[in-house]
């Protein structure tokens, strides 16, 4: 702690901060551009100048850059000083010299840091009368628009893209007054984290292209605190809606998880919620087609089917909320509820849950991954399965920079000096995966092996750390590498093990757990991070229900009524297995998407998308997080029958004469009572009764225009805003909106805004310390804690020989819902088969030749990618892509030449 004196007032601040960060944390406004809480200081823009005095008596003082000056004890500064103010006004006018002043047509307008800072400095009128330099813009792919004339040369974009995210294809060109930020030649930005440029850039140079076509100003959208369903990291997002469409997704700050950054799958994959072919009414099968029915008719028909006297079973889903899954379970009875995950996904997820819940090692948050100083990645290509982890692993490697600068007594926020000190030094990252990953370029060592080889390496590391861990016989190279990894992990202060369900092997997960367990005996700071298949996989695993394969075995072609919840079964089980099991079944499908399963249903009930309903999700560290509804689709079209899955089920129960829930909090309470493992989910967010000063919290900004006319094209009468019985949020601009009145719980902040702060920089105002935790604490609740000790997992017998399937998880295209979004489809690869070079030579398969791939009852013709990095015997297929059936890792495959 340090005492600083600002304009005659004395404050306690964190002495390790720079003055800018310290003052912003105090709630004092200093304009700035090049500084960013995640990117630290370079002193490039000169906007953050303040007057600093030698002591209390110094009347002259001198101008300093607050971002480059430590907030040391007894610092005297003035923000309000006239000279400092004039200097700041001059800087903004210089930065604006070539700016086109095109706010009215700029998509940053209304959430623009440059606008806010210009207003803050009082630079009201343009005074540059001459010709401005102009630039040509580049095509950067389907995600990001480029308008270089608006650039103020703050360098944040390249500092984020290259230094933070490890991107290679964004640069800065030219010099002096003619500087250009873009690609060497135009083309798709390659980084999977490119979308963050739209928030990092304080101006309208980089904007969200997916928002562009149907653009709405920030102040005219409606938002909600929501959770990304793109993977199990559970990043916090702020979807923006207008006229019943999701228009864009922005990051919602969470200090333990996403921080300031999302991945591109999460940011740009929302298009599934806007698809025109989504079911919006109850659909009743008549012959080969569906007839549209009202909600009540759908419920009645559903109830009739359930009453038919046949066996009723329910199949849940890892992409549905806990509430929806619980509602289904309670409708059909615990004995008739199945998780809906494939047997392999379910058993691997259950194993991860066991490791996290019963093992001695805590599950790492993203922040903890950022801080790791030695990492072993065993089997997981996180870019495909938990992308935000991959970005965090880059920070772990870069952490060396902090250590080295601290040793040299350079404050770690001095970004340029720290980088100079560290040069290319990185913390050690060991990557052992079946195939090369993008992170290999920052790895201390890599190993390519199949599941058996990876498990052997992991167990050898565990044994080298602790002789009581199971001994494994490994070849000399593996043993040497294992010893090196063990020594490195042992020497680390905050070691981390990363693994997961991605390569489909229990042996790999167990080996990773053994390393973590062994390490935990030596170092209590050890952490583990396990990627699981889908957004709510871990939450569903906590139900302890049998899996989809068990449901199919139970059905076995018998007569039954099957309620399928938000689940496209064709992605999880083979067509022949489904056909056989469902031969005599009547399917009621509740979903927000049109799928192969809804196509075979007798009745389809339209469910809410992530933006139309509330629900609780359990992320990969066991954190329950509530995702709130952004908008009510019925507000724009009252015939629409879309509602949360749990509400459909509640209405079915009522129609069956059973007691049912009427609001979300009742479902949550019921779920907690029925499933002890879920105890605590109510605390994920305040309940629907929560109020501030007696008022609900507004989902829309105060200046939202035209709400009352939003449906004037339908009918001139203005309906009252939809009432929300499920949350303390209001579908309106009316309600609590300010950052000042009361500290709002983080789980209830739909969008970042504070008076004078319209851009994402407004998060400053919600944080206890800028860049740190939220004022009211970060949201979500951990449903379990790791345990004292657990026995090592015994070694498993080696897998079978011969060609074996290896699912390859793609960042774009492998996840079901985001894969339906057009911009994601533009980035998705065509299906292919990856074959080891020796296997290919033996079989006479040429690179890129059409190849026959046979497994189970599938026979596919795919172009071959012959690879040197894939282990012999592994046959890689891109999971979830169009033309790729459900994959079982380790299943036997046959390959043949020709289509």
């Amino acid at each position, binding site marked *: 702690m340090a005492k600083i004196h600002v304009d005659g007032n004395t404050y306690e601040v964190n002495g390790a901060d720079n003055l800018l960060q310290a003052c912003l944390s105090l709630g004092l406004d200093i304009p700035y551009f090049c500084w960013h809480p995640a990117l630290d200081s370079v002193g490039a823009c000169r906007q953050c100048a303040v007057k600093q005095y030698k002591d209390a008596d110094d009347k002259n003082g001198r101008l300093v850059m607050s971002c480059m000056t430590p907030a040391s004890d007894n610092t005297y500064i003035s923000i309000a000083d006239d000279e400092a103010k004039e200097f700041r006004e001059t800087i903004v006018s210089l930065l604006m010299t070539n700016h086109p002043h095109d706010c009215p047509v700029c998509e940053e307008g209304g959430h623009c840091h440059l606008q806010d800072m210009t207003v803050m400095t009082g630079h009201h009128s343009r005074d540059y009368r*001459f*010709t401005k330099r102009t630039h*040509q813009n580049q095509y950067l792919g389907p995600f990001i628009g480029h308008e270089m004339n608006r650039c103020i040369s703050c360098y944040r974009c390249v500092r984020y893209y290259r230094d933070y995210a490890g991107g*290679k*294809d*964004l*640069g*800065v*060109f*030219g*010099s002096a007054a003619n500087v*250009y930020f873009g*690609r*060497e*030649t135009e083309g798709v930005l390659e980084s999977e984290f490119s979308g963050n440029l739209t928030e990092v850039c304080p101006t309208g140079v980089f904007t969200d292209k997916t928002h562009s076509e149907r653009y709405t100003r920030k102040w005219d959208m409606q938002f909600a605190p929501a959770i990304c369903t793109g993977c199990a990291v559970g990043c916090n997002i702020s979807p923006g809606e207008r006229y019943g469409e999701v228009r864009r997704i922005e990051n919602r700050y969470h200090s333990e998880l996403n921080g300031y950054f999302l991945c591109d799958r999460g940011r740009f994959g929302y298009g599934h919620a806007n698809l025109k072919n989504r079911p919006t009414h109850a659909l009743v099968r008549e012959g080969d087609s569906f007839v549209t029915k009202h909600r009540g008719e759908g419920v009645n028909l559903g109830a009739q089917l359930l009453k038919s006297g046949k066996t009723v079973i329910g199949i849940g889903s890892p992409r549905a909320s806990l509430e929806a899954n619980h509602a289904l379970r309670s409708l059909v009875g615990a004995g008739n509820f199945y998780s809906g995950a494939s047997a392999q996904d379910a058993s691997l997820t259950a194993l991860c849950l066991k490791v996290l819940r019963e093992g001695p090692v805590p599950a790492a948050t993203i922040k903890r991954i950022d801080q790791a100083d030695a990492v072993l990645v065993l089997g997981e290509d996180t870019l495909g399965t938990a992308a935000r982890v991959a970005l965090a692993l880059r920070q772990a490697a870069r952490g060396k920079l902090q250590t080295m600068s601290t040793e040299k007594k350079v404050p770690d926020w001095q970004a340029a000096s720290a980088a100079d000190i560290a*040069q*290319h030094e990185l913390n050690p990252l060991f990557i052992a995966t079946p195939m090369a990953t993008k992170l290999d370029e920052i790895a201390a060592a890599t190993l390519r092996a199949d599941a058996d080889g990876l498990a052997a390496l992991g167990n050898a590391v565990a044994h080298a750390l602790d002789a009581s861990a199971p001994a494994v016989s490994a070849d000399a190279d593996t043993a040497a590498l294992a010893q090196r990894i063990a020594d490195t992990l042992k020497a680390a202060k905050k070691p981390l093990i990363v693994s997961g369900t991605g390569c489909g092997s229990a042996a790999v997960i167990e080996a990773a757990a053994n390393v973590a367990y062994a390490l935990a005996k030596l170092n209590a700071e050890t952490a583990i991070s396990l990627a699981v298949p889908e957004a709510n996989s871990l939450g569903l695993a906590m139900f302890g229900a049998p899996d989809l394969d068990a449901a199919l075995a139970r059905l076995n072609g018998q007569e039954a009524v099957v309620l399928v919840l938000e689940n496209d079964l064709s992605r999880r089980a083979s067509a022949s297995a489904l056909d056989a099991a469902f031969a005599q079944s009547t399917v009621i499908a509740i979903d927000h998407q049109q799928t192969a399963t809804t196509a075979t249903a007798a009745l389809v009930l339209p469910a809410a998308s992530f933006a139309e309903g509330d629900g609780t999700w359990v992320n990969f560290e066991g954190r329950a997080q509530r995702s709130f509804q952004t908008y009510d689709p019925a507000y724009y079209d009252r015939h629409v029958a879309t509602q949360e899955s749990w509400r459909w089920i509640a209405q079915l129960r009522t129609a069956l004469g059973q007691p049912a829930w009427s609001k979300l909090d009742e479902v949550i309470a019921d779920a907690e009572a029925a499933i002890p493992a879920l105890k605590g989910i109510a605390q994920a967010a305040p309940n629907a009764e929560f109020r501030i000063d007696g008022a609900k919290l507004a989902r829309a900004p105060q200046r939202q225009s035209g709400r009352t006319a939003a449906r004037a094209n339908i009918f001139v009468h203005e309906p009252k805003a939809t009432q929300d019985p499920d949350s303390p949020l209001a579908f309106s601009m009316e309600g609590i909106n300010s950052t000042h009145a009361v500290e709002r719980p983080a789980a209830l902040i739909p969008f970042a805004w504070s008076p004078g702060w319209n851009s994402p920089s407004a998060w400053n105002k919600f944080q206890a310390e800028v860049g740190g935790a939220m004022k009211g604490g970060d949201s979500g609740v951990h449903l379990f804690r790791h345990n004292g000790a657990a026995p090592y997992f015994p070694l498993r017998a080696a897998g079978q020989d011969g060609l074996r399937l290896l699912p390859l998880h793609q960042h774009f295209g492998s996840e079901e819902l985001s894969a339906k979004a057009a911009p994601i489809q533009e980035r998705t690869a065509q299906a292919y088969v990856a074959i080891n070079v020796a296997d290919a030579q033996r079989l006479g398969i040429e690179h890129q030749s059409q190849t026959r791939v046979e497994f189970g009852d599938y026979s596919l013709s795919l172009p071959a990618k012959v690879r040197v990095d894939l282990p012999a015997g592994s046959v890689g297929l891109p999971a979830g892509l169009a033309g790729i059936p459900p994959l079982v890792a380790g299943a036997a495959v046959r390959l043949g030449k020709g289509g």
Partner: protein
Amino acid sequence: MSDTPVLKLADLPKAQGFALSEEERHEIEHALGHYPDGRAASIDALKAVQKHRGWVPDEAIPEIAKAIGISAADLEGVATFYSLIFRRPVGRHVIKVCDSISCHLTGYEELRDELVKQLGVQYGQTTPDNRYTLLPICCLGACDRGATMMIDDDLHGPVEPADVKAILESYK
């Protein structure tokens, strides 16, 4: 403002199917040997190509970048930062006129006007016979001899407008 040439991207020549020559490759590898880090060899590598071709075409950037093991975007940043790395073809002789402050005080404008008149080209342009290219440059470190200019590797100064013709004639 009249000093600023208008750059039309479409007018730039395109080097199709660019490949580094054996000599260039050799010189780049030699330069690489001087530094622990490939990035440090950026300027030497660019200069090697410029030595042989007179300038560095866009298409050369990815090739040079590959040779020194950095990204094309990184190298392009270096190659556009330094004004003596030419990114358009230049004439046999490159005239660099100092436009920094001392020379401004000692006759820069007259010198520039005389050059423009004699050569019939503006900054950034090359005479039709491909003999001269005219460029501005910042302080040549010879402020005591302003107004100064540099032709190829020769420094001239002080230069009076009346001297220009004779100096130009000495460069064939």
